[in-house]
């Protein structure tokens, strides 16, 4: 490594970077190549997860907990990557996840492929900045082309079959494709239940996912209401309440507790007795207030004193305690109730309404959950995921979330492109063609971009056990010959290459985001020519 120092006018060296021996430094092309190597390694890990026949990864956390997943963002974030460039890719997949929710694997594979192509260009002596300029131009072209090949899919509240097909595409690569139709339907129904069609917005806060091991994946269901992982506070309260008027409280059934620091001294018997009376009255007052406003069930964010609990039972008020913050909000939304922070504020119009509230018990361990159904406001829904083991339940939840995101994206923007890498191949052809008209060095970079796009269909074919090069060249030639842009890789070996017929759709915004984000990241990596790493102290 070249030492970073300079000399003064007497020829004595002085050090610019302090404690140089403790730092590792790479510069120039060497740095860029090291980055590309790292990015390629990361991309290679998730590459095999791509597509309907992609495989899963086991991730073992530092504490020995196991996650089995096919979701790019989950795999990336749990890998605990230390390398700086690797971390950038983790961020990349995370931002795709936050923004779009799906396509988190594809984006990493694309970024990896772009960098691989860039490496070749670097070897030819092309300056990194020229490469990134070329990529930029190519990306613009590809995105414009995506718009061209996209189709608008019609959907309405009654005609959801196309949304359903898109959800299926997203679920195809996950383990839940065992119950493919069912999960896709759940995703579509859940989103449509909560979607605000006028504003074209979907509030994910209204969809809750509860998982419980046991049963099988096919037992998963969509509950039009709320599920709370709690039970009634007193074992002898009735297990089912019909026509429930629910009081939602965020104050504990306990003696008042002022927030300011205080001290209450008892100095005489009279005071002692008064205090006891006050305490008794406080409890009774609380229960009376709840009863008076007409509520027949109480949900409370806090705990109950034993005495209050017993009083509630005596007054035939079933109660749920320690309901978590998000659940309280969800409950309030679902039942159209108001969250009441003080007993004094309770009134009948602040109560929520639900058709039934019941406690459901599972298995042999006496675990139970409270199901709130037929709510006043049908907007809040809960997906109740079942599965044979913990890992599968977790993975099913992640997969459903992805599928819901896809449906959400279509509600926001109902343009789709065709899956099975048809869109990538079509863009690759378009970019390649356009490159011929560019007279500068960027032409090379643009051709490389087209080749990088080909990496996606290659990976798909490879994962599906098809010969990658043969498949790609066949599909490409067919696209050009027949002029149909919806031809793609036939992963499931059905003999049909037209993705329009196979109903493999991806939302346009998802694909566009993939192209844009991946190109942006690659440009950023190409621009770095110097890395200074602080070595950990040797202690």
């Amino acid at each position, binding site marked *: 490594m070249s030492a970073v120092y300079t000399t003064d006018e007497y020829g004595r060296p002085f050090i610019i970077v302090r404690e140089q021996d403790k730092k590792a430094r790479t510069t120039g092309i060497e740095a860029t190549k090291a980055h590309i190597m790292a990015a390629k390694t990361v991309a290679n890990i998730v590459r095999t997860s791509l597509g309907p026949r992609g495989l899963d990864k086991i991730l073992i956390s530092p504490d020995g907990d196991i996650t089995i997943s096919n979701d790019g963002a989950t795999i990336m974030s749990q*890998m605990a990557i230390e*390398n700086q460039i690797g971390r950038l890719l983790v961020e990349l997949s995370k931002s795709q996840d936050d923004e779009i929710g799906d396509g988190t694997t594809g984006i990493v594979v694309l970024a990896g492929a772009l960098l691989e192509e860039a490496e070749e260009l670097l070897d030819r002596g092309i300056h990194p900045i020229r490469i990134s300029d070329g990529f930029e131009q190519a990306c613009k072209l590809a995105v414009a082309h995506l718009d061209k090949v996209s189709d608008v899919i019609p959907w309405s509240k009654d005609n959801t079959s196309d949304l359903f097909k898109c959800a299926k595409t997203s679920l195809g690569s996950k383990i839940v494709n065992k119950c493919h139709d069912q999960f896709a339907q759940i995703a579509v129904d859940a989103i449509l239940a909560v979607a605000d069609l006028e504003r074209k917005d979907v509030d994910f806060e209204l969809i809750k996912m509860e998982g419980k091991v046991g*049963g099988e994946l096919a037992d998963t269901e969509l509950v039009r209401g709320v599920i709370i992982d709690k039970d009634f506070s*007193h074992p*002898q309260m009735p297990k089912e309440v019909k026509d429930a008027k629910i009081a939602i409280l965020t104050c504990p059934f306990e003696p008042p507790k002022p927030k300011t620091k205080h001290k209450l001294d008892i100095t*005489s*018997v009279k005071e002692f007795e008064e205090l006891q009376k006050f305490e008794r009255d406080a409890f009774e007052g609380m229960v009376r207030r709840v009863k008076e406003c007409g509520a027949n069930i109480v949900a409370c964010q806090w705990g109950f004193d034993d005495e209050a609990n017993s009083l509630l039972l005596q007054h035939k008020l079933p109660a749920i305690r320690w309901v978590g913050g998000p659940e309280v909000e969800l409950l309030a939304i679902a039942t159209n109730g108001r969250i009441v922070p003080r007993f004094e504020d309770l009134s009948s119009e602040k109560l929520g309404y639900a058709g039934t509230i019941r406690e459901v018990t599972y*298995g*042999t361990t006496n675990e139970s959950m409270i199901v709130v159904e037929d709510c006043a406001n049908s907007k809040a829904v809960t997906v109740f995921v079942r599965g044979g*083991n913990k890992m599968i339940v977790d993975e099913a939840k992640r997969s459903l979330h992805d599928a819901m995101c896809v449906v959400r994206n279509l509600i926001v923007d109902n343009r789709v492109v065709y899956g099975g890498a048809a869109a990538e191949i079509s863009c690759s052809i378009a970019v390649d063609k356009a490159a011929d008209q560019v007279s500068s060095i960027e032409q090379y970079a643009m051709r490389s971009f087209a080749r990088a796009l080909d990496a996606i269909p290659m990976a798909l074919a490879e994962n599906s056990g098809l010969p990658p090069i043969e498949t790609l060249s066949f599909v490409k030639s067919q696209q050009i010959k027949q002029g149909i842009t919806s031809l793609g890789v036939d992963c499931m070996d059905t003999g049909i290459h037209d993705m329009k017929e196979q109903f493999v759709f991806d939302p346009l915004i998802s694909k566009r985001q993939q192209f844009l984000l991946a190109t942006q990241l690659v440009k950023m990596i190409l621009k770095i020519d110097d890395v200074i790493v602080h070595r950990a102290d040797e202690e």
Partner: protein
Amino acid sequence: MSAQLFNEGATQERAENARLSNIIGAIAVGDLVKSTLGPKGMDKILQSTSGRGGDDGLVVTNDGATILKSIPLDNAAAKVLVNISKVQDDEVGDGTTSVCVLAAEILRQAEQLLDQRIHPQTIIDGFRLATASARAALEQAAVSHVDDEKQWREDLLSIARTTLSSKVLAADKHQFAEMCVDAVLRLKGSTNLDRIQIIKKAGGKVSDSYLSDGFILNKKIGVNQPRVLKGARVLVANTPMDTDKVKVFGAKVKVSDPAQLAEIERAEREKMRAKVQKIAALGINVFVNRQLIYNWPEQLFADAGIMAIEHADFDGIERLALVTGGEIASSFDAPDLIKLGACDTVEEVIIGEDRMVKFGGVAAGQACTVVLRSGTNQMLDEAERSIHDALAVLSQVVGEPRIVYGGGCSEMLMSNAVDEAAKTVPGKRSIAMEAFARALRQMPTILADNAGLDSADLVAKLRAAHYEGRQTAGLDLFAGDVVDVAGRVTESFKLKRQVLLSASEAAEMILRVDDIIRCAPRQRRN
């Protein structure tokens, strides 16, 4: 050249290596518990180095879930198997060994297919088809006798015997089967096993165990209070009976001279006396409290002729409230709102050398108590686990009354159905289906092996019997022959279905993996 991506200490296994390590891990776990399967299965001793568990960390058990829970495993696939066994335990209560063994056998078959270079997803496709046809066959074979009361009870007894026969209680399985069925039928469809209490007392013989229709509380009656009561009216409470604290936050007694202190103390005592009087005024003669009762209120209760029992644990009072039909009360100001419990007799009974309180002739007869006796603690613990398994299975059968036949009969039935279905499936998937059928056939093979019989011969005979259309043929592991097991070895349909589904789900999950990334273990500070 590859770049250093992960932290130091992190490892990555890819493709073949990852698959191999998963399958080997799963098979190892399967082999570990395999020998406990069936009526002639063997037990395992688990010795914990830290001295946890039983008396000296020694556990003797036959229960798959217990064995797997106790072994710290480091293999990811093995952990998946442990998890399905735990889920099986929570969901159905038994079949914890079977589910692991079946999953391991499926993976063992899958390994051979992978060696033939078949894509894991193709294998999975085949397995899914196989699971579906096995499930259909199982559902078709399931019968329900819930309408015929006599036959229904016979079924339950048979299921209990099947479950118990692989456990330590096998010798007395008829007696225990009766006990378990009686206990579960009392629940009237509820799956809340908390209502069945199991009391373990070392000493005596296993066959001295009995089912008590009343409720036994492992507590002593207060001093100077009646030992036997007829026509008891019981108040079940959860309230402080030491000193009634002022719960208003921050309250604190502050006095300036001893006279005042004495007065406060008197006021406290008066408050307690008032509380006791309020309780006594309810007209009760038995008072059971979850919390402590101090000597002073205890004496007051004795004066009032009330039997006071302190410090009953939470489960205890819940069960007691349930059986006596009372409510658990914590406030006593509104006497008309408190529901009292009732029972015919409350008496002190002696089990072994311990005195306990028995509530006999209770109003709601849902709860009951199983008293287990045995020579050693390990035996008692294992007996409790066995009883729990049997109760859990039975309570689930009450909810889902369909039954299937055991002794390898159902497995052979499913295996044949899968084999038949495989013939109609074109392509490589049919090879996977055949492999699945082979895995199912491994179950009777293991049963026979564990019994020391000629498994190859027996299983072939069994298979032939099924092909002849004798759909209820199974293995009699005591006679070592193929017999008609209908009515002899019965198992819960729900249990078998769950074993099939969980095992294939887990196998699928493990097969789908082609990469294992293990983060650097967290550094522990010593």
